[in-house]
């Protein structure tokens, strides 16, 4: 028993060192993709809660991501607020939007919820495109400032990586805590057996809205981190394909598996980038990759990842020495 905890502690330490020193041995391009993976992870963790734990399928997640991005961009560019204030505000604003979408969604059954969320997503996208007074329309917003800690400006991938690392780890920690908590359990109860959930005193309306709000806050924070990295955003960054892409990452990760979701986001973010070499045939390659993946892991890769990535790594090391 002691040996196991010592071993897992060593694994954790190894992974921690790896993560801390990553920029030193990764090229610019790989670091760039890792940053996007982190941003996607934060965003998709929220979607995973919504789909996997509360059973509400949403094809509108890019809307919350975009609201967070635009909110953060506008607060810093037009109002001159600091990134550190804009980010939480962006999360809150996205959360409020989450309430707005959740309420009409309560009335519709699962399949129609997909359409409601698509509709919402379109409305938000159109607002970005046409409310030029606020959002600058199709021209988007430029000159979004890099975050700064005191005098230290995070203006390169290597520096931004650490910001993303902190937020991604925090998001992973928070979401793990949420799904294991009284909140997470009740969401799963509602998903499993809504009538019985009500019979044991669960206010299903409140919890369904709460799931939307939590998921949209995560997306809003992801959007803000995105905006301050790319420094230029425009409505096309938040279209329906982005929502689909988030949904695919969430589903591919397997229901209710946070390690699966993490792996899924990493794999699919890298796949999307690396398939660029195929030029026009990129989406075909990506689609094939996805199809094969779903054939071998029909319930998402989370289902084979019964162990956490850390113990899987441990097993790998053990077999090499054993």
């Amino acid at each position, binding site marked *: 028993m002691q040996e196991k905890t010592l071993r897992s502690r060593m694994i954790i330490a190894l992974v921690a060192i790896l993560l801390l020193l990553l920029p030193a041995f990764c090229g610019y391009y790989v670091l760039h993709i890792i940053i996007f993976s982190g941003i996607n992870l934060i965003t998709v963790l929220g979607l995973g809660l919504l789909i996997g734990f509360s059973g509400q399928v949403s094809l509108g997640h890019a809307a919350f991501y975009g609201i967070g991005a635009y909110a953060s961009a506008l607060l810093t560019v037009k109002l001159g607020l600091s990134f550190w204030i804009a980010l939480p505000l962006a999360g809150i604003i996205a959360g409020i939007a989450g309430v707005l979408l959740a309420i009409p969604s309560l009335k519709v059954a699962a399949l129609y919820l997909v359409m409601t969320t698509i509709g919402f997503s379109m409305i938000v996208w159109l607002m970005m495109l046409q409310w030029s007074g606020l959002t600058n329309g199709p021209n988007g917003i430029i000159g979004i400032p890099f975050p700064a800690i005191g005098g230290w400006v995070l203006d390169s991938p290597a520096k931004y990586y650490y910001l993303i690392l902190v937020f991604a780890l925090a998001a992973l920690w*928070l979401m793990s*805590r*949420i799904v294991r*908590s*009284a*909140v997470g*359990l*009740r969401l*799963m*109860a509602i998903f*499993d*057996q809504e*009538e*019985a*959930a*009500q*019979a*044991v*005193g*669960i*206010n*299903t309306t409140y919890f369904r809205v709460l799931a939307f709000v939590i998921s949209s806050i995560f997306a809003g924070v992801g959007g803000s981190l995105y905006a301050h990295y790319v420094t230029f955003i425009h409505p096309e960054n938040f279209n329906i394909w982005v929502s689909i892409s988030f949904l695919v990452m969430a589903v591919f990760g397997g229901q209710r598996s946070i390690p699966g979701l993490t792996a899924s986001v990493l794999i699919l973010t890298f796949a999307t980038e690396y398939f660029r070499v195929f030029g026009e045939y990129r989406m075909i390659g990506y689609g094939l990759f996805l199809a094969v993946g779903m054939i071998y892991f029909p319930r998402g890769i989370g289902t084979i990842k019964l162990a956490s990535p850390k113990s899987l790594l441990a097993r790998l090391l053990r077999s090499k020495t054993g």
Partner: protein
Amino acid sequence: MAKILEIENVSKFFGGLEALKDVCFDVQENELLSIIGPNGSGKTTLFNLITGVYRVSGGSIIFKGQPVHNEKSNRIAERGIARTFQNIKLFHTLSVMNNVLIASYCKGRPQSWAQIFGVQSGIERDRKLKEKSRELIKFVGLKGKEDDVVSNLAYGEQKKTEIARALALNPELLLLDEPVGGLNPAERQEITHLIRTILKEGVTVLLIEHDMRVVMNISERIIALNFGQIIAEGKPEEIRRNGAVIEAYFGPEMD
């Protein structure tokens, strides 16, 4: 003896179908009242009205002096009415412990966000609720199975889990819908014994059951329904000899 539940002229229509018509009866505190009747006579509909699954088409349901008809199910659970389901409605992907624990949150005030952020009071509260849940699981005879996913349990064990879950609400009124349906004689004995113990704790029990031996054995009073109306009411001995009840189950006497 106080009346804990009053059913006053309750009717329920589903379109043209009269599921319940002008049903009137009272339930005394801490009694065991059984509702019997052929399939389709309206027993489960009555339970669904009491627990807020359906709205009444007419009449009122008074619990501890307050109207509960047309209230939301979760509010009714908070008021002190718990139930089990005829066809088991457990949270099938979750463990026995989690099924009971989730129900304990109703009266148990779990402090979720304190728990999430690791604040001591939240963790402590969670520990206490798990402890209480463990006791309930032991009470129904499922000690050792806390971590089993309920969909893997035997049918009888699932029924027991539902009872434990209902008890986690600390109810004053417990509605049991066919608790021994599909169980073997030994299991029926266990459930009967459980119900007796629950009564001793001061809970009022409303029972729907088809097994006449169990009904006659533990009921203090019986109400018989047929086609949505009460056809007889009284002590077990009276009901057993009642012509209308016999006819409802077995059809009219043949000459």
